[in-house]
């Protein structure tokens, strides 16, 4: 009934694994501290030494709390709480003496496991933590076995079996447990991870870190055939206000802001679902031209603005899935007055004089807008323009410096220069930021868009045609693209994965992509499950015209049916009890006459032994009583008549 060394070692190892993911965010002194505590425990176990005394424990606790206050400035709040919990586990583990302490450590470790999900929620960590859970379960089986208990292998087997058998229960609870929106205490804290998403403004050079990140921005799945990924321009924001350095959206109080887009479309629509992780932005991504957006979460109700951006009511702080219908063949804002177009010609005065001069010259040579655009793109292509994400610092006149001096840059520099050039030439233009392309996974039909696919391009308003997309970055001669893995899409390179390649490389890729698909499904199905989906699910299994509260009705019916089935049995049981009660009353009566029934005696035996000692009249009643009782109790005649007869006979004894 007491744990052995190996059980303590197992517990210590499981606690170490439960703690491990926290190393990513806890201060390093705390990781060291936890490591020391775990080593100390291992040493104590190995040498069968006594745990440290109360005084030492209290000193350690005070020291650790002081350390937490020093590091976090407080002991409240999520991060500080987790630091305290993990240190408490280390201390509790140190003083394990009895099974009680062992259990306390196991439950604390359960909690520490759970807190890992505050930081990471992907499939990998979930599997890993389930594994640690099995370890923790296996470690305390030994507290309950007789010597010799089951071997380690069997303990793991029993634990895993228990967990797997409990999964259906867990799944049902997960689906029906009422979801409460919002925190119970404290204010909603920002998600633990650093958001690496796109910002709401653009100034050349901003995206440099973003385009080097391999993190997933979002994934999408098309219903029907997935288009060529190289053609997927995911619009995020349309930026039209320029201050010489930074591009911004037009002011929110602008009257045009909430106007529906003036859109005409032809051809077939594209329908696709997008799952995006929290990014603290207030917009979603879509392909041009979005006609319709749906999400399940009311906070993320989305409006399509006049400039085809998708704006949400509140910032995206959880994983969201939304469905968009877009028409790739469209024309936008065909009819614009000069006043409507004025904001797209605005330029700060005093910036980029060389570009202005250059624009004037070009305009003179190419009176038609389309010709002018192509002339500029050709200029980029023919001259010595390079694409690289390692960009030297630019001067105050960013566009001049870029176009005439440095001639190196990436999408932001090219789109910035293009729009400034166009506005100088008197053509309405604006910047669009978003993502380009993605990686198509043919196994699950998903397109994964990474942060590295972040892109900026331009739109130009052409009379009679409306806003048209131009991507000046794609005009660069591919031979002048420098070491940039993330830019493959921008130059029309093949980004479609082709089947399972031969050899290990192919297998690795296969596993990687499948793992990725699994993670995507996990995100889509699991992490986005919220109160709305729950309502939807419960509604979907119930007839549409009734609220899900009506589920109580069938439940009640089932309960009634069960009662109907089991009540007669129960009543029969009660009836049997009535006979029994009569018998016991008789026994008690006889016991008062000093004729005690032995515990092992059946009624007949008892009657045989006892009846001679009774008066003849009573003797007859008693014999009759026993006869009726035995028949009623052990035979099939247990009716009310018999019971009445028994009562009568009993009174006569």
């Amino acid at each position: 009934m007491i744990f052995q060394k190996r059980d303590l070692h197992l517990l210590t190892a499981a606690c170490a694994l439960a703690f491990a993911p926290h190393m990513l965010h806890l201060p390093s002194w705390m990781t060291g501290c936890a490591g020391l505590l775990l080593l100390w425990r291992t040493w104590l176990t190995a040498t069968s030494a006594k745990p440290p005394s109360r005084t030492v424990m209290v000193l350690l606790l005070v020291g650790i709390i002081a350390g937490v206050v020093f590091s976090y400035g407080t002991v409240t709040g999520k991060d500080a709480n987790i630091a305290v919990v993990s240190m408490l586990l280390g201390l509790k583990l140190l003083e394990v003496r009895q099974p009680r302490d062992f259990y306390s450590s196991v439950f604390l470790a359960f909690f520490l496991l759970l807190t890992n999900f505050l930081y990471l929620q992907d499939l990998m960590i979930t599997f890993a933590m389930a594994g640690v859970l099995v370890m923790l379960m296996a470690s305390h089986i030994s507290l309950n076995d007789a010597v010799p208990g089951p071997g380690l292998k069997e303990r793991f087997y029993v634990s895993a079996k228990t967990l797997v058998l409990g999964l259906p229960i867990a799944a049902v609870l997960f689906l029906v447990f009422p979801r409460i929106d919002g925190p119970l205490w404290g204010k909603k804290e920002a998600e633990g991870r650093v958001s690496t998403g796109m910002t709401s403004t653009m100034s050349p050079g901003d995206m440099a870190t973003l385009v080097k990140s391999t993190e997933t921005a979002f994934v999408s799945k098309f219903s029907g055939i997935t288009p060529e990924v190289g053609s997927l321009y995911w619009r995020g924001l349309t930026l039209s206000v320029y201050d010489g350095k930074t591009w911004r959206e037009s002011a929110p109080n602008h009257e045009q802001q909430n106007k529906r887009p003036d859109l005409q479309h032809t051809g077939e629509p594209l329908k696709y679902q997008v799952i995006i992780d929290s990014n603290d932005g207030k917009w979603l991504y879509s392909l041009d031209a979005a006609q319709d957006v749906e999400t399940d979460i009311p906070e993320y109700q989305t409006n399509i603005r006049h400039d085809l951006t998708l704006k949400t009511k509140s910032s995206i702080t959880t994983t969201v899935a939304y469905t968009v219908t877009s028409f790739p063949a469209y024309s936008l804002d065909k009819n614009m007055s000069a006043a409507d177009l004025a904001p797209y010609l605005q330029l700060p005065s005093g910036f980029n004089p060389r570009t202005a001069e250059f624009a004037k010259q070009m305009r003179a040579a190419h009176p038609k807008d389309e010709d002018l655009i192509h002339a500029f793109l050709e200029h980029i292509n023919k001259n010595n323009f390079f694409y690289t994400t390692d960009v030297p610092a630019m001067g105050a006149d960013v566009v001049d410096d870029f176009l005439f001096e440095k001639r190196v840059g990436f999408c932001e520099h090219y789109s910035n220069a293009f729009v400034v050039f166009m506005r100088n030439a008197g053509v309405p233009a604006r910047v669009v930021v978003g993502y380009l392309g993605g990686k198509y996974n043919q196994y699950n039909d998903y397109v994964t868009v990474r942060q590295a696919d972040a892109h900026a391009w331009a739109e130009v308003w052409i009379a009679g045609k409306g806003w048209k997309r131009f991507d000046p970055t794609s005009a660069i001669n591919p031979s002048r693209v420098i070491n940039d893995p993330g830019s493959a899409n921008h130059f029309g390179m093949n980004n479609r994965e082709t089947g399972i390649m031969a050899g290990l490389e192919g297998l690795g890729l296969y596993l990687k992509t499948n793992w990725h698909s699994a993670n995507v499904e996990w995100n889509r199905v699991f992490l986005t499950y919220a109160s709305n989906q729950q309502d939807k699910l419960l509604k979907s299994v119930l007839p549409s015209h009734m609220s899900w509260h009506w589920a109580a009705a069938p439940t009640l019916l089932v309960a009634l049916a069960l009662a109907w089935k089991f009540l007669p049995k129960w009543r029969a049981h009660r009836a049997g009890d009535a006979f029994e009660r009569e018998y016991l009353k008789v026994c008690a009566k006889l016991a008062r006459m000093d004729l005690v029934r032995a515990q092992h005696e059946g009624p007949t035996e008892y009657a045989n032994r006892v009846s001679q000692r009774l008066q003849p009249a009573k003797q007859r009643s008693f014999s009759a009583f026993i006869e009726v009782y035995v028949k009623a109790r052990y035979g099939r005649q247990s009716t009310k008549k018999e019971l009445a007869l028994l009562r009568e006979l009993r009174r006569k004894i």
Partner: protein
Amino acid sequence: MLGQRRLYILPLWPGVGLFFGVLLMLFASINYGMNTGFMFSFMIVGYGIVAILMTNLNLYGLRLKAQLRQPAVFCGDTAWVAVSLSNARRSRRYAIAIGRSQRLQMVGATFLNVAGGTSISTGIPVPTRERGWLTCPLIQVETAYPFGLFRVWGFWNPAVQILVYPKPEVGAPPIFSSQGAGSDGRAIERSEGHDLAGIRAYRPGDSQKHLAWRQIARTDGFSTGQLYTKDHEGESSLQLRFVYDDLPAAMGAEQRLSRLTAWTLAAHAAGASYCVDIPGATSAMGSGEGHLAHCLNILALYEKNEGA
């Protein structure tokens, strides 16, 4: 057999602890809107519920059988009831505690593992305090395996009765005393058994002391295998009669029975022929194991009306 209706279950304190732990985990999950946290908490709920089932299954269907190790014991000695636990299942049942039940608590628990398809036997000590038939006390079987979150137990009343003889008096007067017989319950009758009645052929079981050596030598019995025994009148040399009513009036019933038991045992040890004479039951004169058991039986059940 331990069936579902006879098994009881209650959480042990780790089970209660787990319950509150899960509540805490759910609060944290709600607060931070962690779906993984919800799932994880519910997995632990599932673990708790399945643990009930697993603990229950560890006892469910276990077959119990009891038998006495020895037919009877003397009062004050411990009677051992041998209980065999048989496991018809293929898997092993671990950590089953079995013992006497005393106010729902187990006394003298033994922990056993019962391998699949086997049975294992263990002795349960039952203290004896009174002569007569002793009904085997209620037996309790329980387990907390595998996780110790819950305790499952069941009761079992084995249909076994133990005959308890009176406690033999320590320091009882010797059966052969110099004082005259009759005043204190011993009636010693000198038997005529020492007189030689003749010589007969040896029968298996005859004492070596009674072999007729001279006769055997004369007929060369050792080479022919024909042995002779001296035939005595009666088997023993003494006939003892122990009379309950003749014991001193100051002695109580139990004291008298205790002394009679001591004498009976002494007489048996001495190989004497004896009988007990108590009101309502008197044994015939005799000797041997069977006779001893009979006499002790009479003493044990004096004025005990119940009997099997």
